[in-house]
Each structure stands twice: as C-alpha cells, then as structure tokens.
C-alpha cells in the first residue's frame, strides 16, 4: 500500500490501462484533459505523450465524439471518452442514452459496445447553472448503462480498471473536488468489481448512504458527530448500476435510520431512488423517515454563498443525521 492523492491514483489507472490493452483509445481535449480544469491537469501531458496514437483530441463535437467512441467499441476497440464537465454529456445525450445504452439489448445480444464515458459532475465552485450538473440520476433512468461513482483514491483506481474491462457501456463519473483527497492504494494492480458497496465508516446509529464527493463530506460530518455521541455508518455504493442493495439493507437493518446524501438535484435524483428502494424492502425496519440531503431544486447559482446554500453542505448533512438519530 502507498498513499496517493486521488488524481494520482486516477492517472496511474489510466496509464496502466493504456499500457495493458492496445484496444483502449482515450479521447480527450488534451490541453485540459483527464483532470478537468484542476491545477493538476498538466500531469496528464506525460500520458498523452506516451501514447500519441491512442490519446487524441477531438473537435468540440460531443455528440459525434460519443457516437464515434460507441461505434469504435462495436468494431473492436475499447474507447474511453472524456467529456470533462458532465454537463457536456447533454450534447451527446442521443448517443449515450439512445444508441450506446440500447445497442446490446436491441440487437438481441449481438452487439457489444464496451465504451466508457468519463464525466466530472457536480458543484465544483462557481460553475453556475450550466456547468454544475450531476447527470447520474438521469442516466440511471436509462437501462443499459453501468454507472460508477468513485469516492477515494483506491476506488478510483480499482473502478476505472473495472470500467475499462466492462463489456457494457459504462459512465464513469467523478468530481474535481475529490482530486486532492489522499488514501492508501494497493501496490499490486487491483480491479474493484462493480456492484460491491463499501462501508466507509462503521457505525451503529444512522445509516448514511452517499456517493462520490458526498462520501468524503459525510465522513467528515460523521467524525464531528461522533464527538456528540452520534455514531453514523457511511455506506458507499461505488456503483449505482449495478447497485449493491444488500450491503445497504444490512446497515439499515442494524440502524433503522437512513440519511441519503446526493449531489443531484433532489427531484428524481439518486437519493429519490435509494429512498424508494430502501422503503420498499425495509419498511418494517425503519424507525424514522428516510431523509434526503441533495442539491436544492433550483438551477445552481454562481455566487459562493448562494451555491453553498443550495448544495448538500456539511451543515445540511449534519442536521439531517441529527434529525434521523433523534
């Protein structure tokens, strides 16, 4: 095990994936690259230089580019497309949700499209309404796509490797504000299978289910609340398609109290689905209503105090956990 920053683990995974399999092509705007607009983005250059034929910059044509990657996947490659800001996935919506997602099913199992779409979702700080989307809920509403939401250095590495190996179209969604988080990463190459939730913090009182950056935020709140005697268990599904409901329900069984933390807009967000499923199977176990902490249902405002107000902030998470524990 070594300690790595999230962005380092992510780059390491990409480098290993490109080195291991010639069929992997990585389509990205090389100048901004795999690390979005983060301060670390220049570190991507080295990879771009190592695989000049397989790391390519496309025109600003997300729709055609996602279609191209999907078609290339149908014809034997395993492309990874970096859309950078998740909101730009909307430009490619018809190809992602209506071509890639349907290809295997619609062809009666004839055609595989092992393509990975990489997105940076969420409130990144001053992204305003157009650059702050978290499209994972919309994508979950489209059967046929696997959806990955890593939250730690170890997970981003192991899950990216699993995504690259997946035979189904996979949307790999992470968050620019995760990049500086540090954590232990195994020396040996690890592939983390889809559909295995992880208890990121064990606790007895309240089950907190969170994804992506919200896992880190929930962990930080949980530590604070522990001092006040509230012992929260933080469960990270890591992939929402497939979803490991068993691990979540085992925790709910224990605590009977649930808080869902999700950066999607609240209505029809990831937390809505989790709330519905948990209440469906765990109705008799719940001691209190399932609480959601999500982005308020307004376009994301630019101004920092406004953005903070609408976001699933530590303040709001803490309040929800306290209320659930009561």
């Amino acid at each position: 095990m070594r300690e790595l920053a999230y962005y380092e683990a992510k780059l390491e995974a990409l480098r290993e994936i490109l080195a291991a399999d010639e069929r992997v092509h990585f389509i990205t705007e090389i100048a901004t690259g795999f690390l979005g607009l983060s301060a670390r983005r220049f570190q991507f250059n080295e990879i771009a230089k190592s695989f000049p034929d397989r790391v390519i910059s496309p025109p600003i044509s997300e729709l055609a580019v996602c279609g191209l990657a999907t078609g290339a996947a149908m014809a034997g490659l395993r492309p990874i497309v970096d859309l950078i800001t998740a909101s730009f996935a909307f430009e490619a919506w018809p190809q992602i949700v209506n071509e890639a997602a349907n290809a295997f099913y619609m062809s009666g199992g004839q055609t595989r499209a092992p393509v990975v779409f990489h997105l940076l979702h969420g409130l990144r700080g001053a992204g305003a309404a157009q650059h702050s989307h978290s499209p994972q809920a919309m994508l979950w509403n489209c059967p046929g796509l696997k959806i990955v939401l890593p939250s730690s250095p170890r997970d981003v590495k192991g899950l990216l490797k699993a995504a690259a190996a997946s035979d189904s179209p996979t949307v790999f969604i992470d968050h620019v504000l995760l990049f500086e988080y540090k954590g232990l990463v195994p020396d040996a190459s690890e592939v983390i299978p889809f559909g295995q939730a992880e208890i990121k913090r064990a606790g007895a009182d309240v089950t907190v289910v969170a994804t992506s950056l919200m896992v880190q935020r929930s962990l930080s709140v949980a530590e604070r609340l522990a001092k006040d005697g509230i012992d929260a268990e933080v469960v990270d599904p890591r992939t929402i398609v497939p979803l490991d409901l068993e691990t979540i329900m085992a925790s709910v069984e224990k605590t009977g109290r649930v808080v869902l933390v999700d950066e999607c807009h609240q209505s029809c967000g990831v937390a809505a689905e989790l709330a519905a499923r948990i209440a469906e199977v765990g109705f008799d176990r719940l001691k209190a209503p399932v609480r959601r902490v999500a982005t308020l249902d307004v376009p994301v405002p630019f101004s920092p105090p406004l953005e903070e107000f609408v976001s699933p902030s530590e303040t709001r998470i803490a309040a929800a956990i306290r209320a659930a524990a009561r």
Partner: protein
Amino acid sequence: MLLIRHFEETLIGLHDQGHFEGHFHVYIGQEATGVPALSCLAPDDHIFTTHRNHGHLLARGADPARMYAEILGRRDGYNKGKGGTFHIAASHLGFHHTSGVVAGIIPLAVGAAYAAKARKTGQLAACLFGDGALEEGAAPESLNIASLWNLPVLFLCENNGKYGAGRAIGAVQSFSMAVYPLIDLPKVYKINARQVDGTDADAVHQAISEAVERIRRGEGPQFIETQTVRWPGSESNWPIVPVPTKIDLAWDVSSVPQKFRDWYASSDPVLAFVRKTVECGAATRDELAEIDRNAVERIDKAAKFALASPYPDPQEAVTEVFA
C-alpha cells in the same frame, strides 16, 4: 432487387392483416441503390443503416425469414424480437446496430471506421442514410471528424426526394435543406463527393466501387448521393401497395391505377432493370419471370416461417440488458 420488392410488398400485406403493430418503412424504389452498393463491400466491412434497412439487409444476403420473424416480433427474428423493423441487426453480415433515430448511425459508422483504421484491419464502414439525416447536427459533426482523421468510411446518402414532396429534393431547392446540391456539404468538409442516379444500378455500382477503391487506398472518406423518386405507396405514413410488382409491368403499366402509373412507368428501378436486362440480352423475359417466381416463392416461405415462429417467452424481456 425482385426479392426486396416482393419482401416489402408481402410485408405490407402482413401489416394490413394485423400481423404486426407499429410504424414501418419500406425500401421500394431504392432497390437499384442498395443492391449494387452492398455488392461492392467486402464480407467483413461494417454497415450501419436506418429505419429503411430492409433492402440493405436483403442485398447483403440476410435471410428474409429471420427478417420477417424480427419484424413480427418472433423468437426466430435476428434480434430475437427485441428490435423490430427499425433495428434489425445481423452482426455476422456486418450490421451491428441499426438506428431509428435520424442521423443516429452517422457517428457510429465513423467510429467503426476509426476502429478499422486503428486496428489496421483494412475494413471500411458503410453508413447508409437518407437525405433528411443531413439536417441533423450529428451529420456535419461526423463529416468533419471523418475528414480530419481521414477515416475509411463510405457515406451513402439515399436521397429519395427527387421531384417529390420529400425532404431534400434532389432536383430543386428543398424546404428543409439550404445546401443544394446536397453533396456540397461533404465537399465543404473536404470530402470527395458524387451524385448518381439511384435508379440506375450500373451507375450506382460504378460510383460505389470507385469510392470503395479510394477508401481502400487510404484516400479517406467518400460520399455518394443517390437520387431516387419516392415511391407513391409511401405518400401516407403507412405504406400501401398500388399494384403488386410483376415482370410484365416493365412493358405495360396499364394495370396500375392512374395516379400511381407515372412512377411505375418511369421511376421504378426494378422495372427499369428488368427492361435493360432483356434489352441487352442478358436474360429473356421468360428467364426473368422464372427468377421472379422463385423470389416470390422464397418470400412466401419466409413469411410462413415467420408466422409459425412463436413469440419469445415474456421473461426474455429482462435478459441481455448488459453484455
């Protein structure tokens, strides 16, 4: 061509008899494009087509029985009944994915060409679409990338609006496309492009085989527009057969209702080919009639096969979501 024609005419009958639901499109009038065009491709080339795919699949040798089964939603369909008329796929023939979204396949075909180039397989990707697809932004985006990256892709735009009330009208400015002629669009992206009469099988064959050669030589994407006159049976949203096609119509269209007669007399590519074949002495009328009877018979059998094929078990609906 006769096989395609009878396939489609019989299909319309199956629809009228209520054997399948929903919207569908037929390839009547475009046979002299699809048949020669697909004959120019190699067995392992990739092909992407649209809602108007039946003729392309048949031209490539697909089994009409399994196609009917698919269109009727039966277990023996190519897609096991999951796709239907808009989405017939036959991977072994290179049809990986057939999309009903206008222009949906254009980026996909460019991607398959990208893969072929990257993997140095020598394959090309053929992308078969209608004139209307050029109105979607996906088309110019894809033309741009195909050109910049010099990809082995054949764009075949079947413009079925010549003189018609269709979309991009072949011989006059259309109400929905400012680019005229259509081939000016690929040209502006520096893609070699040619217009050809889509009812003339020989002309299509020549144009496509040249384009394919260019692609194989590494000269990058090629664009062919074939112009055909829209079959009057498709004026309404659901096709109707004005008259079942018979060899004899090539010389006498008096049995065709007056309002449809023009098309059969002068725009029908199948009848034109029949006339030409006889005129140049390649076959006699009797020989053609024999071929025609065989085609009819094969189609009859195919339809019977499909009608006898059971519906899939409903539980099949929840399988094969993920590879």
